[in-house]
């Protein structure tokens, strides 16, 4: 790596021992960072230095590091996943930063996402919403014939667009109200669009939106920050579709 220019960065990172600890920012210096490092690899380097120095490493969530699992969850300079269009933190690379930059790293902040430690938050509330109706009930048995249920291509594609959601919670983190409308809207829409999901559509939208409120998520006020934050580019049209489904359900 000697032929590469390296960067030195100042990191201002949220450190919090547990849910009850008030937490505070701590400042670290990241050295010998190249533009080829991913953001998480940069944190790995910092953590190695911290471990060697006998200090507690920065705790953060990650898993696939391919941008598809939805585990990584950091707010970088105020933007969930760092603000690069359709990119998760793990796919954000240090070439987006300059030598000498100061970078603020914070956890998702929302009432419904209590902080477990440092940059890790508890996103179980999203599971609670899914458990309230984010599924279809069907009989198990033989595998049905692939083309037995015909679905027009535009409908299939729109459902797939909604299904791109990886459940990372960036929409909640980006929303000034800590609302989960984009997440819930994507799940409700994905299922409501398809024939297999229509059977339970009425109960689903009612139950999932009720679970959303019970989990402590805020309400939507149409800022559309969620769409900007979403690493999968989920469109707020799915919130509109959920609103439509909700209104239809009142008359069903």
């Amino acid at each position, binding site marked *: 790596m000697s032929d590469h220019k390296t960067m030195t960065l100042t990191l201002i990172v949220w450190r919090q021992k547990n849910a009850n600890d008030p937490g505070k920012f701590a400042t670290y210096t990241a050295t010998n960072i190249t533009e080829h490092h991913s953001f998480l690899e940069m944190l790995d380097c910092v953590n190695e230095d911290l471990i060697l120095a006998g200090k507690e490493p920065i705790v953060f969530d990650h898993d696939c590091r391919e941008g598809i699992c939805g585990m990584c969850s950091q707010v970088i300079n105020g933007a969930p996943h760092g603000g690069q269009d359709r990119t998760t933190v793990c796919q954000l690379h240090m070439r987006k930063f300059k030598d000498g930059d100061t970078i603020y790293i914070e956890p998702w*902040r929302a009432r419904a996402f209590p902080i477990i430690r440092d940059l890790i938050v508890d996103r179980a509330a999203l599971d609670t919403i899914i458990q309230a109706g984010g599924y279809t009930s069907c009989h198990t048995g033989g595998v049905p014939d692939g083309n037995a249920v015909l679905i027009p291509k535009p409908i299939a594609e729109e459902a797939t667009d909604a299904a791109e959601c990886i459940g990372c919670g960036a929409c909640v983190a980006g929303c*000034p109200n*800590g609302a989960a409308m984009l997440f819930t809207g994507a799940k409700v829409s994905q299922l409501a669009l398809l024939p297999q999901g229509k059977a339970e559509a009425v109960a689903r939208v*009612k139950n999932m939106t009720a679970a959303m409120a019970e989990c402590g998520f805020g309400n939507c006020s149409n800022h*559309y*920050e969620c769409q900007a934050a979403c690493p999968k580019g989920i469109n707020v049209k799915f919130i509109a579709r959920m609103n439509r489904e*909700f*209104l239809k359900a009142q008359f069903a």
Partner: protein
Amino acid sequence: MQFTSSSIGRKVLMAITGQAMVLFAVVHLLGNSSIFGWLSGGINAYAVHLHSLPLPVIVGFRLALLVMVCVHIWFGIQVTIENRGGRPQQYAVKSTQKATFASENMIWTGVLLLAFIVYHLLHFTFQVLYPDTAALKNLVPLHNEMVPNVLGMVAAGFKNFFVSFIYAGAMVVLFLHLSHGIQSFFQTMGWSNDRSQPLIIKFGSLVALVLFLGYVTIPLTIFAGILKG
């Protein structure tokens, strides 16, 4: 969960009441524009026409408006308090991508509009703020009968810089509130998608701008001496 306690249900009620008030603002502006003389007898004739409507219609209309204002404010305050609690701790760095000054300050533009509506009603409807120029006390002839001098009251009010300034300022606030509110109505009702939404956002801002320009023209032309009482 009850419709009126659900997240989307309350927003739908806010959207419908808000949009009804936008429609009122459009009709109100069309009526007020009679001050420029397109109606024989001007705004005085328009006022006579409104007051000649059957009493139940007038009372019913006013009551409906009052109910809409109350529902809109009630749920507005309720969801805003909930929303402030949705993210108890703010980020150290604020980085907004799509939110606007208007969308982030709906509650405050709403509070200012409520204060303005109270002032406006005391000024022109109940006519208690400037009793000397009150239309009901200053009758003028129109088509062989004596009618309240609305034109005189409006003109006298807007010749005062302070009064004109309040009205113009309130219309800026109205523009901000509606530039977010109108497009929000379509999104909340579920009447938008990725293709229509950019157009709806532009349409909402355009309607808000037209209402702003229309309303602000009245105090401006009177204060500038172009329109005379």
